[in-house]
């Protein structure tokens, strides 16, 4: 049981990190980015190519994160422009359609050009025992990176004036404009941040499972599920939902079978919408 829970937490941290970038962009800008998983894959392939060109690991990772952020910026400057002209439901729908299109294009391109590149950052060394359970080093390092990332995100939002300005747009966009904050600039910043987070997802995930040109869709799907359960626009909710879903999914996989865990996750998301439409930590409007 302890082993299940620990594995669940490891997976859950992954889930939480997956959702963070997606949920922020949605909460801030009403943009549902279905090309999110592909942004992660782009980073993964950039890192793979850099590594095979002999670039040292840390530098390759930095390059991957940079390209992830660049992908976010490009989305903001191009395909999302028409989306920004709309409000409310049409805005979400158009963003969903356009980014889905982008995800197909990226998928097609990557599968054609880089069908075999696979990012798999193996961390060598013995398993480490935690509470009597042997844990793979890769899982532990991935979890540590995720925790540090979340701590940095929380610190940014709570203690910096820029982070406060971003939160103000999430809470009341008109109020933010009335105190002189440019919502579009905040959104651009967050899109870049979400691209970097997508890159980080590729890095931490590849320490546990290989990431290749086909991984995009599943990353987006998991991110969506966790985002729904955690509450749109809520980073703390994403972390909490990620951990809960991670534990549930590992236990379900072990008790019943791996095939069931995705169904259970979807059911959890559906149930959340029924019971708490604003998500676990959501506040009613």
């Amino acid at each position, binding site marked *: 049981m302890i082993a299940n829970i620990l594995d669940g937490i490891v997976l859950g941290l992954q889930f939480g990190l997956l959702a963070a970038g997606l949920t922020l962009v949605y909460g801030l800008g009403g943009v549902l980015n279905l090309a999110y998983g592909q942004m992660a894959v782009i980073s993964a392939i950039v890192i793979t190519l850099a590594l095979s060109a002999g670039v040292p690991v840390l530098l390759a990772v930095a390059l991957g994160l940079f390209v992830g952020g660049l992908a976010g910026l490009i989305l903001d400057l191009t395909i999302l422009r028409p989306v920004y002209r709309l409000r409310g439901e049409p805005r979400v729908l158009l963003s969903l359609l356009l980014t889905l299109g982008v995800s197909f294009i990226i998928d097609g391109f990557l599968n054609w050009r880089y069908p075999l590149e696979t990012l798999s950052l193996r961390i060598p060394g013995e398993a480490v025992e935690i509470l009597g359970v042997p844990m793979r080093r890769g899982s532990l390092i991935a979890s540590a990176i995720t925790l540090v990332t979340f701590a940095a995100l929380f610190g940014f939002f709570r203690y910096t*004036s*820029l982070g*406060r*300005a971003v*939160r*103000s747009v999430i*809470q*009341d966009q*008109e*109020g*933010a*404009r*009335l*105190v*002189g*904050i*440019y*919502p579009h600039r905040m959104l651009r910043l967050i899109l870049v941040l979400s691209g970097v987070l997508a890159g980080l997802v590729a890095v931490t995930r590849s320490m546990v499972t290989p990431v290749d040109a086909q991984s995009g869709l599943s990353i987006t799907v998991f991110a969506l599920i966790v985002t729904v359960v955690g509450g749109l626009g809520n980073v703390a909710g994403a972390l909490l939902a990620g951990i809960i879903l991670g534990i549930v999914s590992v236990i379900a996989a072990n008790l019943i079978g791996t095939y069931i865990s995705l169904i259970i996750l979807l059911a959890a998301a559906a149930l959340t919408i029924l019971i708490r439409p604003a998500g676990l930590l959501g*506040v009613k409007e």
Partner: protein
Amino acid sequence: MLKVKSLSAGYQGNDVVHQVDFEVGSGEAVMIIGSNGAGKTTLFRAMCGLLVPSSGQVFFEGTDISGAPAERIARLGLRFVAAERHLFPQMTVHENLLLGANPYRPDPKTMSLILDLFPRLAERRRQHAGTMSGGEQQMLAVGRALMSKPRLLVLDEPSTGLAPLLAQAAYEALGALRKQGLTVLVAEQQVPLAMSFSERGYVLENGYIKLQGTAQELAANPIVRRAYLGVT
């Protein structure tokens, strides 16, 4: 300080405010009175950049701000306190005030001035804005606007949702700010309150400016007396 020239605005191509002209001079307190649906909020939103006017111009300290976005107008020193307040509900009073100043440069001196002006806010520094009472939220909305040391404060029905005594207190606080030289433009349908505070005013009816004059002139006008002061 503020000059509005033949401003028209509305929704989906239908104007509800028509060719409105008015002015606010430096140091003045000016009211715009009108009943429900007269177009006061629409006029203010068009002036403050939340709504794109269909025609006309707005000059603020000589700069043409017609159709400029709200965030730019706010940075120029024209601060709008909406009737719905638009506070940041899941942030503390303190954070709301911080965001009111130049959002990226905290200003402890103005902060303490405002906490002196509204001691209630000082007591509730750590409370979330969303959980405060209507009166406290109104104070916070005004306090947040004042954090930027605005050149002109524009208030849309500051008495909204306040009990008569609290509404009066809100206007007394505004009066105190006036004495310190703040220029204020206020829209109000509780006309007696606005009258006690302003020196000049305009009457907006069905989107048109129908009358204008000093507070005394308006108070003596039979139409105003009948329609807004409940005198028969």
